């Protein structure tokens, strides 16, 4: 899984992802625990599987992406820092479209509090849904601190599909 960065051509793609996500959220918004209870793979942003401290591959990727791209400001495990707020709290108040919009566009809250745009960062863009799922799992208390383990396929759990495949399918 080599992160690469793409140029401007990503931007229309993310706009489309956001657009699709908005309609998905409006039509099919489901409580975050739903997929967990059903034991299903998670097709919708914010869904995750967490069993005995183990998570699906997509949510694990969300942890890794968070740690690579977000932790430096938002603190370990989504808990917030002196520099930027807790994302665990934020995802409880923001839909996926709002969340992904901030990641793509950035945010200026006060003159000295600025979040950068990740619109040019392909790795982050590909993992927005995964990060959102990881944060939803953290917010629900289903995922603890630190690096989660991935659910063993032999246990009969379907590993998550890579999200960029979902996105490209929608495109």
């Amino acid at each position, binding site marked *: 899984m*080599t*992160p*690469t*960065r793409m140029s401007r051509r990503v931007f229309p793609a993310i706009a489309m992802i956001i657009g699709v996500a908005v309609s998905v959220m409006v039509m099919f918004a489901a409580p975050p625990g739903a997929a967990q209870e059903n034991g299903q793979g998670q097709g919708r942003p914010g869904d995750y599987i967490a069993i005995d*401290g183990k998570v699906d591959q997509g949510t694990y990727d969300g942890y*890794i992406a968070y*740690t*690579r*791209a977000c*932790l*430096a*400001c938002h*603190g*370990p*495990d989504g*808990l*917030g*820092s*002196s*520099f930027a707020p*807790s994302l665990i709290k934020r995802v409880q108040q923001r839909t996926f479209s709002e969340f992904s919009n901030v990641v793509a566009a*950035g945010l*200026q809250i*006060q*003159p*000295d*509090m*600025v*979040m*950068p745009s990740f619109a*040019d*960062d392909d790795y982050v863009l590909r993992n927005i849904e995964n990060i959102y799922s990881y944060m939803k799992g953290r917010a629900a208390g289903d995922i*603890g*601190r*630190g*690096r989660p383990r991935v659910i063993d396929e032999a246990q009969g759990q379907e590993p998550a599909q890579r999200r960029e495949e979902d996105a490209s399918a929608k495109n």
Partner: protein
Amino acid sequence: MLREMKYAIATIGLLAATTLQANDNQLELQSNPEYWATQLGNYQGNRYSQLDQINRDNIGDLRAMWQFSTGVLRGHEGGPLYVGDGRLYIHTPFPNKVFALDLEEQGRILWTYEPDQDPRVIPVMCCDTVNRGLAYADGRLFLGLANNTLVALDAESGELLWEASNGDHTKGETNTMSPLVVHDKVIMGISGGEFGIRGHMTAYNAETGEMAWRGYSNGPDKDVLIDPQKTLMMGKPIGEADLGVSTWPEGEWKRGGGAPWGWVTYDPELDLIYYGSGNPGSWNPQQRTVDGEPADNKWAITVFARDPNNGQVKWVYQKVPFDEWDYDGVNENQLIDVEINGEQRKGLAIIDRTGFGFLLDRETGELLVAEKFAPETNWASHYDMETGRPVVNEEFSTFRQGVNVNTTDICPTAMGAKNMQPSAYSPETGLIYAGINRICMNYEPYETEYVAGQPYVGATLTMMPAPVQEGDQEGRMGSFIAWDPVEGEVVWKTDERFAVWSGALATAGGLAFYGTLEGHVKAVNIDTGEELWSFKTPSGIIGNINTFQHQGKQYLGVLSGVGGWAGIGLAAGLEDPEEGLGAVSAFAALKDYTELGGVLTVFALPDA
């Protein structure tokens, strides 16, 4: 009015003197124990004051006289300057305001300077928008803004005299450091080691802002200002040319980091400046190998001794060749004269990020002592004193463990066993006093690609408290230590709940001072470390405690305002890996103790 006239006359005298060398003014101010004219107290970086009005006998009476809110929320590093004109000069993090405050009117604002900077600089500052403060000489104040603009202000009026651009924030170059004035030059480094910048130290004419010289941390010798036949390494000429190119994979030196963002010290007799360079670009060591093998990545994490007149490098000492842990080499180089093996040496002492306390000969760069001041340090067993190289422990080598492998329980953390918080040295005791961090880490390198202006990190980092040793306070994540730089041993230590991220101060009053991340200013007995006094400021302290005397009264001044890497890393608390799931951790969350907000607190004895 009388005071103003007196200083007006003094100013005229100084103007007459400026036709000589500009640093005469800074040297003269430093030699007056009543002043605190440069961030580290003197050129040697000793943060020592001869003032003793505040001492062990009366420290219990020390009171906060007044406080001043800077109106800025971010981490407040550095501290106030006092140059004898009845004012305190302070600065803030981004937006980098400067205030001249009247010491006699409880901090009435005499003037304010606020530059207009592009806020897009904020997210390219890796670890908060901190700034380590002002420099002063000949009636001018100098400040390096976040966006790399070096400004000169008229200290009397706050008027902008000139500005010079030292870098481009859209490429990830930023500034956090305090410049240093030497001779007629203002010397300033750069930040951005996490954005693949190419580090450099640059000198500007103090009168005009015109660039005088620039020495890079990597690349060909002509850019680094090295002469391989003359520049010394471990006491001998380097010999081989262009090691700043050949110790990197093809072209990687161009984004090789080595940002010198810490403190610069200066020896007026040898006429040499000293500073350390930061981590090499990309935290993934695999991307810095040559033919798949570790390469030195020169001159990252290197102590440089340069001629301040032309930037030529007199000697180099690379503390960590082929960094695998982000052990930035920027910590201050304290210039101290020592007796070692019966011989008087001009020493240079470092309480380093790596957990090692170094002592070098500052004339030649020879390594004299390298011993652990943080006992948990495990990335290297020791230094080979012949080669000057660390003997790395394979178990904690993130290169040997591999890309996409999480190497666990490395000590210290990338924050360093000590970060930029400057230490103090007392010539009376011969000891160095420093706030340190007791934190370890897991580190997982991953492949990353360089894009200008984007983070170029290539490793994930998670932290945990250092294992508690016998006699340690339960749940401690920091300590304040007295270090013998010649014997290479800790003389005493006192543990703190959080990493100690403030600059230390030593005084002739038999006291050492430091601040805590909860916000306490503390005074301890310099001989034992016993706490004698403390005061809770409104926010965590990552600034430095400075002292000065005005009209017969000794003051202490400190900026509080939590932030910096400590605030980012410790706000949520660290998890003890030894504890089971659900255990209540003894390791506290900083956010339970303090919130943001910059405040200057000025202390004095009420009856003095």
